[in-house]
C-alpha cells in the first residue's frame, strides 16, 4: 500500500510542490482533486519538497488535496490493440472505447547505442517530385516541415502518411485544432490506413502539460513496434506548440531563460525526441516527420533554429510549395546515387538554373532589359514551377526525372545546363526524326 501525502506547500502555474519522502526523480504520481484524479510527474526534488507537474493543470487544486506516488515513471500500454485507436496526451482513450489492457512500456527510454543503428539506405517514395528528386526522404530519417500558419502543412503530412510505405503510422497532435484532428481522421479513413494508425491527440483546449507527453507517448509506442521489426512512420504536428509548453513549465520553475524565454536545454529536449528516429540493426525502423510552425516566418526563431540543427534536413513549405532553397534532406546522398545515373546531375543542375532564374526575375522586376539568356531562364523557371514544383504533381521518380530533361531540352542548349558531358550524352532528349516518331506512335498504340 502506497502512502498518501497531503501537505501541499506551493501551487504555481502547472506545478505543485508537496512535502513528501522516498520519492524518485521523474516518478509518476496521482493527485486526487474535486474535479477527479490527475496524473503528475516529479520534476524537482529538494530536501522533503517535491515539485510535481500536474497533467490536468492546477486549476481548482486545493492545498488539502492528496497525492499518491506510483513508484514508476510514465508508461503507456503497448499491444497490437492500439491500432486504429485515438488517445489523449495522458494516454487515455479519446474515442469512447475501453482502455487498453496490456503490458506497459516506459516512456523516455535511454538513447540508442549508435553501434546498433544501421546506415539508412532505403528511399521512401512519396510521389512528390520536390521530395523524391531534390530531397529524397529516407527510412529512419527525422525531418521537420518548416511552415507558417495557414500553409497546408497538415495536408502535406497526411499525404506523406498515406503514400509512404509504412507498417504503422503514428500521429501525434499537439495543440491541434479539433477540426484538424477530424480532418486527419477522415483522410486516413478514406485512404484506408486507419487500421494501422494510432493517434495521440492533444487539442488546443486540453491542459498544456499533456502536450508535453504526446511526442514521448508516440515515440515510446513507435519504438516498441520498431523493435518488433515494423517500419514505423511518426507524424508530429506541431513541435512549436510542444516547445511553448516546455517554455511555460521552465518559467514556472524559475529557470533562467536563454533565448526569447525558452529554456537553455531546448536543444537537448528536442534532440531527445527527434533522435528516437532510428533504423535498428536487426529490427525495424522509425521515421519521423514533424511540423514546425515558424512564428513570423522567422527561421532564426529558437524552435526552428534548434530543430534544424538536430534533424536531418528540413522542408520549407511556402506559398503552397516545397521551397527548393533551404529545403534539404541530409540523407539523400545515401539513396539518390542508386536510383538512376542522372538523378544527382538533374538535382543539382535544375536547382542551379532555377536559382539563376530567380535572380533574373529580380532584374526583370526592376525593369532591366532581358537578354536572350535571361529569356531562356524565365521560360525555364515558369515550366519548372508548373510541372515539377506544384504540390498537386503526383508522379513516380523516373517519370519526374524524364520530365525535368524535357523541360531542360525545351529551354536550353546542352552546354548551358552545366551538367557533365557524360550524363548529357546519355539522357539529353533527342529530336525525333519523322520515322522514329511514327515508330513511337505505333508502339504507344500497340
Amino acid at each position, binding site marked *: 500500500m502506497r502512502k498518501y501525502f497531503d501537505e501541499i506547500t506551493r501551487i504555481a502555474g502547472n506545478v505543485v510542490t508537496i512535502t513528501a*519522502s*522516498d520519492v524518485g*526523480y*521523474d516518478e509518476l504520481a496521482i493527485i486526487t482533486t474535486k474535479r477527479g484524479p490527475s496524473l503528475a510527474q516529479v520534476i*524537482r*526534488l*529538494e*530536501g*522533503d519538497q517535491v515539485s510535481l507537474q500536474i497533467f490536468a493543470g492546477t486549476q481548482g487544486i486545493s492545498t488539502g488535496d492528496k497525492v499518491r506516488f506510483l513508484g514508476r515513471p510514465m508508461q503507456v500500454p503497448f499491444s497490437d490493440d492500439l491500432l486504429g485507436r485515438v488517445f489523449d496526451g495522458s494516454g487515455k482513450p479519446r474515442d469512447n472505447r475501453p482502455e487498453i489492457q496490456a503490458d506497459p512500456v516506459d516512456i523516455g*527510454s*535511454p*538513447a*540508442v*547505442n*549508435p*553501434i*546498433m*543503428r*544501421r*546506415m*539508412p539506405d532505403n528511399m521512401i517514395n512519396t510521389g512528390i517530385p520536390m521530395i523524391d528528386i531534390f530531397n529524397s526522404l529516407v527510412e*529512419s*530519417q527525422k525531418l521537420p516541415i518548416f511552415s507558417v500558419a495557414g500553409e497546408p502543412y497538415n495536408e502535406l503530412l497526411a499525404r506523406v502518411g498515406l503514400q509512404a510505405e509504412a507498417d504503422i503510422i503514428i500521429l501525434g497532435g499537439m495543440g491541434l485544432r479539433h477540426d484538424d484532428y477530424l480532418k486527419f481522421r477522415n483522410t486516413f479513413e478514406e485512404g484506408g490506413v486507419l487500421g494501422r494508425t494510432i493517434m495521440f491527440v492533444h487539442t488546443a483546449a486540453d491542459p498544456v502539460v499533456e502536450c508535453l507527453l504526446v511526442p514521448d507517448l508516440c515515440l515510446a509506442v513507435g519504438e516498441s513496434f520498431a*523493435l518488433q521489426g515494423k517500419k514505423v512512420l511518426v507524424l508530429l504536428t506541431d513541435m512549436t506548440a510542444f516547445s511553448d509548453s516546455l517554455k511555460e513549465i521552465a518559467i514556472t520553475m524559475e529557470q*533562467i*531563460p*536563454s*533565448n526569447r524565454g525558452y529554456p*537553455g*536545454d531546448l*536543444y*537537448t529536449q528536442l*534532440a*531527445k525526441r527527434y*533522435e*528516437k528516429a532510428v533504423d*535498428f540493426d536487426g529490427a525495424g525502423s522509425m521515421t519521423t516527420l514533424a511540423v514546425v510552425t515558424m512564428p513570423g516566418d522567422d527561421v*532564426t526563431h*529558437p524552435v526552428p*533554429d534548434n530543430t*534544424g*540543427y*538536430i534533424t*536531418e534536413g*528540413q522542408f520549407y513549405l511556402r506559398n503552397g510549395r516545397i521551397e527548393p532553397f*533551404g529545403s534539404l534532406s*541530409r540523407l539523400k*546522398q545515401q539513396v539518390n*546515387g542508386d536510383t538512376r545515373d542522372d538523378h544527382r546531375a538533374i538535382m543539382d543542375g535544375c536547382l*542551379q538554373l532555377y*536559382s539563376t532564374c530567380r535572380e533574373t526575375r*529580380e*532584374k526583370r522586376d*526592376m525593369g*532591366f*532589359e532581358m*537578354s536572350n539568356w535571361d529569356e531562356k531562364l524565365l521560360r525555364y523557371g515558369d515550366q519548372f514551377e508548373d510541372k515539377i514544383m506544384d504540390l498537386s504533381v503526383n508522379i513516380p521518380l523516373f517519370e519526374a526525372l524524364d520530365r525535368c530533361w524535357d523541360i531542360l531540352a525545351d529551354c536550353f542548349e546542352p*552546354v548551358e545546363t*552545366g551538367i557533365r*558531358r557524360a550524363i548529357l550524352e546519355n539522357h539529353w532528349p533527342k529530336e525525333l526524326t519523322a520515322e522514329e516518331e511514327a515508330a513511337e506512335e505505333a508502339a504507344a498504340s500497340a
Partner: protein
Amino acid sequence: MTGRIVAVFGNMVIAEAKGDVIQNSVGYCCRADGAKLLSEIIRVRGRCVDLQVFEETRGLKIGDTVEFREEMLSVALGPGLLGQIYDGLQNPLPQLAEQEGFFLKPGKYIHGLDLKKKWAFTPTAAVGDTVSAADVLGNCPEGIFEHQIMAPFTLREECTIKEIAPAGEYTVDKQIATLATADGKEVPVTMQQEWPVKRALAICKRRLMPTDPLITRVRIIDSMFPVVRGGTYCIPGPFGAGKTVLQQITSRHAEVDIVIIAACGERAGEVVETIREFPELTDPRTGKSLMERTIIICNTSAMPVAAREASVYTAATLAEYYRQMGLNVLLLADSTSRWAQAMREVSGRLEEIPGEEAFPAYLESRIAGFYERAGMLELNDGRVASVTIGGTVSPAGGNFEEPVTQGTLKVVGAFHGLSRARSDARRYPSIDPLDSWSKYTGIIDPAKTEKMRSVLRRGSEVKQMMTVVGEEGTPIDDFAIMLKAEIFDNCYLQQNAFDEIDGATPPDRQQFVFDKILEVMDTDFDFEEKHQARDIMFKLQDLFRNWNYVAPDSNEYKDFVQKIDAFIAAKGRE
C-alpha cells in the same frame, strides 16, 4: 568517503558530504536498484556538494548514497585506442552493445582498453637508464603504428629503471617495468596509464610556431584559407550549409597520422555513417582501412548532456597522448556549440549569473583553453609532433554575432565561414571566399591568392552593381571580370565531394590548376559583346569543370590541358 543526496533537479544532484571532497573529482550516485551513476563535483558550498551526473537521473531519491572518489575524471591511455568508438566518457560502444543490446543503460561502464588482449612489447630502455615523464621505455605494434610505452606522465623527477620486462606478450594492466626515484621509492609501470581529461598533456622541450601546411585536398582550404599542423581553425555555419560533410572529407583526406573525431551533441545518424563507412575506406597513404588511424568519440545529442561536456576533453586528451609519441594528430570537434550549450545547461542549473544569451561568463576562457590544447611540440627527444584542432560552430540562426562564434574567432588561426547563400545555390563547399580568412601560409604563394581574392571581390561588386544598373549598364570590362570571378568560383573553389577525383585534389595539381586559372585572369579576351563574352566563358568553364573530373595521369588529362591552352591562346575564337 560518502555523502547523501539532498536535492535532484535535471542532471544536477546536491549531496551532503561527510568528509573532505575534491573539486572536479568523481562521485557515484547510488540508485536504489544498485546502479551507480557517474558524476563530477562541480561546486562545493559548505557541506553541500553540487554534482553533475553523466546519466539520466531518473529514479534517484533523497537520501540515496553518493560515493566520492579521489581521482578526477580520467581516461585510460595505452595500446588499443585506435579504431575504437567511445562515448564521451571513454566507454567502448561496441562492447556496450554486445552486453546491453540496443540501448545505453545508465550506470553501465566498461574500461576503455581491452584488458584481455595481449600486446607484443619490446623494451628499448634498459635497467639502470634514467628516465623522466613521457620518456620511451619500449614499444608494441598497434595497427600501422609503433605504439610507444612511455614512463608515467605524472613522474615529477628523474627515475632509474630498476626492472624492465623482456620482449613478450603482455596485457595492458600487467606490470612491465619498475622505476625507482632518487629516494628509493618504487614506481610500477604498466602499458596503460590514466590522465585527467581536463588537464592538458604536453610534456616537451618547447612549443613551436606551427608553419607546416596541413593538406586537406579541399581546394578552397588548401589554396585560399590554409590550415597548418599544430594550428587551429573553426567552421561556423548555419544548419544545412555542409559543415558535417566538410568535416568528413577532411577526416578522410587530411595528411596527418591520426584523426580523432569528436561527435559532440550532434546527430547519431552522421556518426553511424562514419562508423560504417570508415572501416570500408582505404587510407590513400597506407593502403589500410581508414579506421586504423581513427578514433571516434561519440556523444550524440540524445545522450546525456554532461557527458557531452566531457567528450571534447576526452578527445583532446587522446590526441595529446598520440602527440607524445611523435605523431601528427587532427582533432575534429563537431560541434563546439553543443559543448558550449552543455556548459550553459549546467551553469543554469547552478543558478550562476548568466552572461550573454544565458551562456556562463567563463565561456570564452573555456573555449580558449580548449583550442590552446592544439600545438606543435618539440618533444624531449627532439622529435616534432602536433595536434591540430578544427571545431565546427553552429550559431543560432546562422548569425555569427553570438557568443560561441565570437569567442572562437578570437582564438583560432583560420576561419572557414560557411554561407547559407552559397549552399542554397549549391556552391559546395560553401565556405564564403570573401568573409573567410587564415593567418597561416599554405601551398600557394600569398601574392597569388591575394590577387584571386581581389578578382573575387571585384566580381562580387560588379554583380551587385548589375542588380542596380542592369547588364546593359555594365561596362564590358567589368562584365568580363565578373565572368572571370565566376570561373574561379565554379571551377576551382567549388568541388564535388561525392566524386572520387574532383573530391580530393592533391597539392601539386592544385598549384598547376591555380596557375592555369591565373593565366585566364591575366588574359584580355577583347570581348566585343556581352553575349559573346558569356558564350566564350561558358565554354572555358565547361573545359575546366570536366578537367577536374579527369584522373591526373590519363591521356584525357593531357588533352584537356592542351585544349585549355589552345582556347586561351585563341582567346576563345575558333
